[in-house]
């Protein structure tokens, strides 16, 4: 299944590895911060509402 990358395997796999890691980091950080900020705002609004 894995294509034969020959002598360029390091260049190709490193490129894909770096890309996947960086994209995963930006997605996870964005989702984590979105949840954190939403929870904090909900708490403040509930406190003001009650």
């Amino acid at each position, binding site marked *: *299944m894995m*294509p*034969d*990358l*020959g*002598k*360029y*395997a390091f*260049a*190709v796999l*490193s*490129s*894909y590895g*770096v*890309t996947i890691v*960086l*994209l995963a*980091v*930006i*997605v996870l950080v*964005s*989702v984590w*911060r*979105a949840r954190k*900020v*939403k929870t*904090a*705002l909900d708490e*403040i*609004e509930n406190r*003001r509402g009650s």
Partner: protein
Amino acid sequence: MSFWEYANPVKFIRTTDKVLPWVWALTGISLVTGLVWGFFFTPDDFRQGSTVKIIYIHVPSALMAINAWLMMLVASLIWIVRRHHVSALAARAAAPVGAVMTLIALATGAFWGQPMWGTWWAWDPRLTSFLILFLFYLGYMALWEAIENDDTAADLTSILCLVGSVFAILSRYAVNFWNQGLHQGATLSLDKEENISDVFWFPLLVCIAGFVLLFIALVFLRTQTEIRARRTRALLAREGQA
């Protein structure tokens, strides 16, 4: 219905909440399809061998690195002219995504350059303008963090964005302006002589669609976050005054 309705933060959050699951789904489908197609089911290039597979991440990320800045430019201009907070916050939300795209383009370019050019880096016009664009992204994000007042930060970062646009455009056309250096010309040219073969072109188009959709999904999500963070700061400030 007017486009400017989305300048209302509540309307923006409500609309993007409905759209986001679809954008995430389309992003996943197109990224997985494009990358699997490109990596597993395309042949090696007769000259570049298997390194041609780097094109499916290098070109889309470079494209988004430039276009993210241009999106920030439009949002900054809207802020300067119409003072809509959502547009300033959208520009702020896009910056880290653009910076990551630029970093991916630089890193994959280095990995590709080493076996093809015999060097990881050269002070080539396109590479250099891309590096400067990356530094502009860092400066832009740092400026937002450094200024406490949101409106002042939006004003100053908008000006920085206008200045940085020179390098965003330069990084696209550097190869044409200075006919020197190692980097090739346009990969996506419609000129038959210059364009890449269809066997590489179609999976590349799917990957580009995936990167564009990922950018849209992240900017929507992060703009929602910036709107909520701004409201939180405002409420806390009011509580502090009371």
